[in-house]
């Protein structure tokens, strides 16, 4: 067993980048999950499926435009809207009748939805692996201080903070954002001041799912897009929002950073068991702070 014998600064630098960029994808997806948890109180197990639909839709848009770089950029923009549309239909047709039910019902319902989405993806896109190619300016690596840094990861490092700033602006500066924060705490009172909470919920749900779709579109060039993506991400996503503090989007950021970084340093320290590190981190956080690192709205 090699216990991290060859850790040098160069590989440290590139692992740091890999960890951070993975954290950015996780953050975008988990912020959406956490937002839905906070405002609607729905633990949406189908969130991972929407991420998967985002990745497959990105592939379709990319293929539609002859696998060009225009296709890639359009896939980043259009795929999240496809997911948003799917979620709007699911919300208006199904979810909105169930908010009064207990959490277990909602959990089972979203679980059913996950299975349905999984089958739909299989019917529409089939079981083959799909891939999206990043445009040439985002391919390859650049070398800084001897570390070879993949450009796409650097791109993710720009997009992640932009999404964080966008979410900060939305929740703290816009009226709809403020209303959704109020609805997270006391939905009945939001109705009393004349706001139709039903539409607030629909909006919050669609925004949360949009983020799942955006995460899926962003991850598309870095993975083989396949059935099963939904399961992989949803477990991680629930762990992340739990250690961050349920319903707190900044908690989702902290949790994602912990998850992404511990994993990539795990790769350096003990490659065969790298996957253990983030889960160990989750256990430690939950032992120290059972309700998560930041304030939970639950």
């Amino acid at each position, binding site marked *: 067993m090699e216990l991290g014998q060859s850790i040098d600064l160069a590989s440290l630098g590139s692992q740091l980048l890999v960890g951070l960029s993975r954290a950015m994808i996780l953050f975008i997806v988990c912020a959406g999950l956490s937002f839905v948890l906070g405002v609607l109180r729905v633990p949406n197990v189908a969130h991972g499926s929407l991420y998967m639909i985002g990745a497959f839709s990105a592939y379709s848009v990319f293929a539609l435009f002859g696998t060009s770089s225009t296709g890639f950029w359009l896939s980043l923009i259009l795929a999240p809207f496809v997911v948003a549309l799917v979620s709007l239909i699911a919300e208006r047709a199904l979810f909105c009748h169930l908010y009064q039910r207990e959490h277990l019902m909602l959990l089972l319902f979203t679980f059913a939805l996950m299975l349905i989405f999984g089958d739909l993806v299989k019917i529409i896109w089939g079981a083959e692996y799909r891939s999206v190619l990043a445009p040439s300016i985002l391919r390859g690596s650049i070398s800084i201080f001897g570390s070879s840094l993949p450009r796409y990861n650097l791109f993710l490092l720009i997009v992640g903070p932009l999404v964080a700033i966008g979410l900060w602006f939305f929740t703290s500066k816009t009226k709809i954002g*403020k*209303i959704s924060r*109020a609805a*997270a705490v006391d939905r009945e*009172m*939001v*109705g009393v*001041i*004349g706001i139709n*909470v039903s539409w607030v919920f629909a909006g919050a749900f669609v925004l949360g799912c949009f983020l799942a779709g955006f995460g899926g579109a962003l991850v598309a060039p870095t993975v083989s897009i396949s059935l099963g993506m939904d399961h992989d991400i949803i477990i991680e996503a629930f762990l992340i929002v739990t250690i961050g503090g349920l319903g707190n989007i900044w908690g989702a950021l902290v949790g994602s950073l912990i998850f992404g970084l511990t994993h990539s340093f795990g790769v350096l320290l003990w490659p065969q068991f790298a996957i253990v590190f983030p889960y160990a981190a989750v256990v430690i956080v939950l032992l120290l702070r059972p309700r998560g690192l930041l304030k939970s709205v639950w």
Partner: protein
Amino acid sequence: MLEVEGIHTFYGLSHILFGVSLRVEPGKVVCLLGRNGAGKTTTMKSIMGLTPPKRGNIRFKDEEITGKQPYVLARKGIGYVPDDRRIFADLTVGENLEIAARKARGTEGWDMERIYELFPALKNIESRKGGCLSGGEQKMLAIARALMGNPELLLLDEPTEGLAPTMVHALEDQIRKLRQAGLTVLLAEQNVRSALRLSDHGYIIDNGQIRYQGSVGELEENEEVRRKYLLV
């Protein structure tokens, strides 16, 4: 303006209101008096659509509103100040007011400026989180928030509860100003003295039933009612 006719309200299986009826004329302040647990809050919630009555009906400005959702009633012009305030703790004072803002139907509506004129204390704490306010500040904010919706009828549930006597007097002045501004008020109170100072007409509720009603003068003179229901 408001007519409540024989409403029966339940919490699950427990029957709380037994045929409560009351009327509030436009521009008047009417109080609903009764001890703790008498059914005042439940009456308010029934009017606001939070605990819709199983039987009976409620009319607002000659329109049937029984069973309508709270947000619809708010848009029709009913404002509600709950006894437990229910300030949005995560939002600042300013944000609490901002999200409650609704255009006035009539001429001159409430806006932040007018609200801060009425409650100058709120201006100084505009950027403080709702969760970090004192009881008195929360009371003021809850009233201010309801006013931002430009209601024609204000349901005020125990505004003076838990306030120091000087605060009670200040609040009474503010409620008088609201009345001068043309607002109709239904006021639920245990604090009989304060309520009688403000009101034109009063109802006494006990065990979910209206036991007595009359003008403030009649209530004050009726020795039996005072002893039996008001404990003064």
